[in-house]
């Protein structure tokens, strides 16, 4: 449809207090009626200077900051950071610790995707139902996390060289109860939204991006795989015990909101499958390697990246030999995914804008750091 009537564009400020900007994100939309003409994103409302703070804390203390970067995928963030330090110091992690890490990370991926699901449902306009469905399932995972680390979100559980504690003795029974419940919850959630005609009408063909552009923009994670690029670091650049696990990398076709949604649902199933496998073959043994009391990596630099729920989380760590990192750069997946927003919102309606933002699943803690 071309513009047939001469109209004046309106500037609409969305955020930072708008309910569906997923935190304190702000964008200034230029709209022609309901149609978006231009979008200018503004971030930084949650900037806490994690990178600067990291330079003033010792290597162990930084783990707590990583918890707070992507506050919906705490274990995954901790993992990336401790892996970076371990690589710098050439520390071998005990196998059991690796299993514990992967189990927790994959559970955290499910929890994070459930959060995405709930928020997406609310963005699409379901009056709380999708959100409540997702949160009941997520609550069970968070409770399991609490039994492991003592905290529901800010765990501070992974250590350079392993994990803080072994799994609690009743973790096996907890998981035996939890896994079937989660499997049911995921299917319930998907049945509520995934087959809903209105939801499909709202998300199919909205916010599309092609594989070439996606790579050019530096998209990663589900947002990239939804365009058909089968790029998953757990497979293409494997770390930890992922080579020992059997899983499938789902890919989308059109790179639209619906594909991103479907992909995450499938990822939840795959993660659950991985957790099951890992629980079956987890070996006994120590959970901490021998590490010096004061961590002083040799001078050098590493770049470690892992597959976060939101995509490719990279940490660039520079050491000058002291007990504090010289420079920590966090390459946050949400930060990079958000860059493509302008492209994704081309020719969208205001209502689509909410869906697109929801389907990107950004966490502002990570975008702003």
């Amino acid at each position, binding site marked *: 449809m071309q513009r047939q009537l001469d109209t004046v564009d309106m500037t609409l400020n969305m955020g930072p207090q708008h309910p569906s900007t997923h935190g304190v994100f702000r964008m200034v939309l230029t709209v022609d009626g309901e149609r978006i003409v231009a979008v200018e994103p503004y971030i*930084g409302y949650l900037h806490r*200077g994690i*990178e*600067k703070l990291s330079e003033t804390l010792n290597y162990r203390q930084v783990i707590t900051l990583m918890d707070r970067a992507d506050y919906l995928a705490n274990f995954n963030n901790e993992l990336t950071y401790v892996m970076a330090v371990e690589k710098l110091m050439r520390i071998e992690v005990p196998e059991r610790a690796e299993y514990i890490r992967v189990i927790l990370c994959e559970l955290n991926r499910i929890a994070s995707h459930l959060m995405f699901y709930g928020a997406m449902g609310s963005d699409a306009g379901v009056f709380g139902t999708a959100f409540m469905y997702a949160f009941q399932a997520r609550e069970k995972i968070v409770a399991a996390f609490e039994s492991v680390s003592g905290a529901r979100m800010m765990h501070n559980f992974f250590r350079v060289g392993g994990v803080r504690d072994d799994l609690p003795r009743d973790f096996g029974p907890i998981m035996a109860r939890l896994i079937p419940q989660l499997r049911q919850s995921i299917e319930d959630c998907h049945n509520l939204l995934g087959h809903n005609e209105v939801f499909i009408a709202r998300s199919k063909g909205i916010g599309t991006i092609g594989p070439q552009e996606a790579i050019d*923009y*530096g998209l990663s994670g589900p947002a990239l795989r939804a365009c058909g690029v089968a790029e998953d670091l757990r497979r*293409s650049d494997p770390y930890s015990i992922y080579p020992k696990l059997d899983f499938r990398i789902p890919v989308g076709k059109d790179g639209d909101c619906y594909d991103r949604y479907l992909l995450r649902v499938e990822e939840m199933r795959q993660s659950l499958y991985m957790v099951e496998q890992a629980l079956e073959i987890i070996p006994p043994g120590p959970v901490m390697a021998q590490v010096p009391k004061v961590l002083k990596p040799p001078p*050098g630099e590493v*770049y470690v990246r892992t597959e976060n729920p939101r995509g490719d989380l990279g940490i660039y760590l520079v050491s000058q030999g002291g007990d504090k990192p010289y420079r920590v750069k966090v390459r946050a997946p949400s930060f990079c995914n958000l860059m493509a927003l302008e492209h994704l919102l081309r020719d969208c309606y205001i209502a689509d804008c909410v869906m697109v933002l929801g389907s990107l699943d950004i966490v502002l803690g990570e975008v702003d750091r």
Partner: protein
Amino acid sequence: MTALGPKEDNSLAVLLGQTLEGVAAVIEQPQGEAVVTVEPEKLVSLCRRLKEDPGLGFDYLRCLSAVDYGDHFQLVYHLYSMAYGHKMVVKVNIPLEDAVAPSVTAVWRGADWHEREAAEMFGITFTGHPHLVPLLLEEGCDEHPLCKSHPMVALRPPRNGDS
């Protein structure tokens, strides 16, 4: 950590050597990853070659970091090729005063916000960047908090009525 076996290493080094002929660059492989250090002037042409060379195809900018080494800034570009799984690092050293580097947004659009962030955090000017305005910091804040010279204190944002 093991994606690049010795064989691929060599082939990547060979490929890089062929591509980088005529570009004044230092190639080293300290930790399995090829690191290329280049002069700022040649950065963009090098990046373009790395991206467009059919044998290399570094089409994905994994990360763009800036580091303040006290006497100079270093810009670090972590590259990745989706097709081959190659990984490499490009480094550029720029002086502290007159910190100017060419922008690679024309090569990878994903460099956009990374460069804006580096610009405000370190005070580096990226020439050729389409929209080099503060990203995370408040408008009008002319401090560069990630510089080593910047003290670890809270930023004082400009308030209305400040003179």
